[in-house]
């Protein structure tokens, strides 16, 4: 990695496109998963967990907003428009979003939501750790700012997985089947973009392959410690496509619901 740091003006055109693509991917992940996880608000398994999970969902929406703000400074629309009216026409067009399939899936039962929370948050924490060293200053600064919060997210996820892995026979079985169900989707987080080389060469981000490698290194011991069995990631058919705008059937209804109020009157002051 080079020792240079760059601000927005100093990026080359292709680097600008690469950064925007990266920002859209991670911002959309946070927006969609933040929205999904907030669906647990009020119906969480216990009051204390309901509050913690909702609070973390809100944190994710905060990250999305921060990433959209950088995009806005790079010439894209304002954060609200990017989140709620991406097409600019008031019509929902899910193809314009770059979130991975994993974030789109319905909340299911709490075992699925918790396992997704664990697998996704680890990838997010590692990504942030990597972005802290990014040559692109605005992103490095954001990553440093969110560091503490992310540490808590990881601690929360880790503790729950360990707890339920060692709970009853039922809790262990449910976590194992959630893990098996999640893994093909989770691997879709690391779908390559067309800008991988630009990001790596510019020292902006070490790339999805590197992220996946570190992620596997970190989650494997936690899964073992939780008495769960790691699926063979080499034989799994990965759920790719989200990063290129090809989504599951679940994204469009989510976006329609999420933007319903906004679309009634986009000019309304809140």
């Amino acid at each position: 990695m080079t020792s240079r740091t760059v601000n927005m003006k100093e990026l080359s055109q292709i680097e600008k496109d690469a950064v925007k693509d990266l920002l859209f991917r991670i911002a959309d992940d946070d927006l969609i998963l933040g929205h999904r996880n907030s669906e647990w608000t009020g119906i969480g398994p216990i009051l204390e967990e309901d509050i913690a999970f909702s609070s973390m969902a809100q944190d994710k929406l905060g990250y999305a907003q921060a990433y959209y703000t950088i995009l806005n400074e790079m010439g894209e629309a304002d954060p609200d428009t990017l989140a709620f009216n991406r097409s600019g026409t008031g019509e929902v067009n899910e193809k314009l979003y770059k979130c991975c399939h994993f974030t789109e899936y319905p909340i299911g039962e709490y075992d699925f939501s918790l396992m997704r929370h664990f697998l996704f948050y680890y990838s997010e924490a590692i990504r942030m750790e990597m972005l802290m060293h990014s040559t692109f200053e605005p992103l490095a600064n954001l990553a440093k700012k969110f560091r503490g919060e992310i540490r808590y997210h990881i601690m929360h996820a880790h503790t729950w997985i360990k707890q339920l892995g060692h709970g009853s026979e039922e809790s262990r079985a449910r976590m194992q089947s959630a893990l098996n169900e999640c893994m093909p989707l989770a691997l879709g987080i690391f779908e390559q973009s067309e800008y991988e080389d630009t990001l790596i060469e510019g020292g902006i981000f070490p790339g999805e392959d590197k992220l996946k490698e570190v992620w596997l290194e970190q989650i494997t011991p936690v899964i073992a410690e939780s008495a769960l069995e790691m699926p063979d990631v080499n034989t799994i058919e990965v759920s790719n496509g989200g990063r290129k705008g090809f989504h599951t059937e679940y994204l469009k209804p989510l976006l329609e619901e999420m933007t319903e109020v906004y679309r009634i009157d986009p000019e309304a002051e809140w």
Partner: protein
Amino acid sequence: MSLKSLDPRVTRLGIPEEQELKTEKSPLDQWQTYEVFTQAKTGAHHTHVGSLHAPNDEMAYILAKEQFGRRSKVTSLWVAKTAFFVTAENDDELFARNDEKMYREAGGFKVMDRINEFKAKVKSEKSKE
């Protein structure tokens, strides 16, 4: 004879031992409770902020963090099982006040008058200068 429990709040309720419970609760129906203490700034006292349910210490800590640490600044957090806190039955009786012992109250010392007198003196001397 009333029911003795590790949880002081149960003991304080004075539930008769013989009383039959109307519904059988399974052992894992409710988690135990924890008491939570937070510190507002480094060096300050940890203050009791409330209680919560958790199955063990580790879970109590992570649940308490969002429960009591998300609204205002917190620099450190403690959790401890409610059952670890010691109290006495009817402790309000123990602490009943005897009005004849006013001299024991800090407010009973007649020193504030002298302090205020001194302060006024210093102030008036300063204004003369």
